[in-house]
């Protein structure tokens, strides 16, 4: 009976091994901490000021976003560049 028990505990062991050892779809979840990404104009390198809006570079006219911004959660209509 004890042997039988051990044999079955090894079933659980096998079940565990299968669950932890496998590769999962999309790979392992990455751990990203808070930080900033590059936001300077990729064309002329200028920084972007709040009053210049989010759609175009105020210096060289480079397009950051070709669409027209509407009222979302963080981004609002008023973030469209005036030019």
């Amino acid at each position, binding site marked *: 009976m004890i042997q039988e028990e051990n044999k079955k505990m090894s079933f659980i062991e096998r079940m565990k091994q299968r669950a932890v050892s496998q590769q999962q779809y999309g790979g392992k979840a990455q751990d990203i901490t808070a930080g900033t990404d590059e936001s300077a104009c990729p064309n002329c390198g200028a920084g972007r000021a709040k009053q210049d809006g989010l759609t175009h570079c105020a210096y060289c006219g480079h397009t*950051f*976003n*070709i*669409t*027209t911004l509407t009222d979302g*959660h963080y*981004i609002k209509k008023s973030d469209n560049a005036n030019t």
Partner: protein
Amino acid sequence: MSQNNPLFEPIHGISLYDYSSANAKLANGVPVEAICSALGVEIPVWEDASQGWVQRMQEDADFIVISEMGTFFAQADQHPKLGHLQPAAGGGNAQNLQLLATDRYFYEELNGARSAAYEAGLDGAQWIQDNYGISLGDFQQVAMQWMEQQKNEAPEEMLQYVNHMEAKRQEYARKFADENGGNIADDVDF
């Protein structure tokens, strides 16, 4: 139906078709940067729009947005800006994908195999990727196409497919169990 309904208004110029196709591509392993560049927006704009679409689906008691999303999802490859995007690893096994889209029995077999894989503690989506070279996004796209077809199927026909899937599920369940030393109660007899 989507005309004149504020629930379908694009968010930051990103329509539900854009959003659905982008999700199909993301599920296929296309990086978010490639999606944004094809749509001509930066990541914060894409994410603000995505969040907006999720919220609209949650706020829509009649599920019309989610249902439209399903239809659009299946048409991702025809999307003018996103349709051509492929993951860096390549488009997968085109022959198997073609078979999945044309042979209902093959599609049902993989559905059954996927269920059996999950029930055996395997990652079903990864199993299909490994064995048939079909990504999750492609699989879901084809699933949406079959679901459209199902609407016109007679009950007997549908039952036939369900039975096929169930038989395959059991067949694969046996295979996956044998690969891992059997089921816990295989030796208990009546």
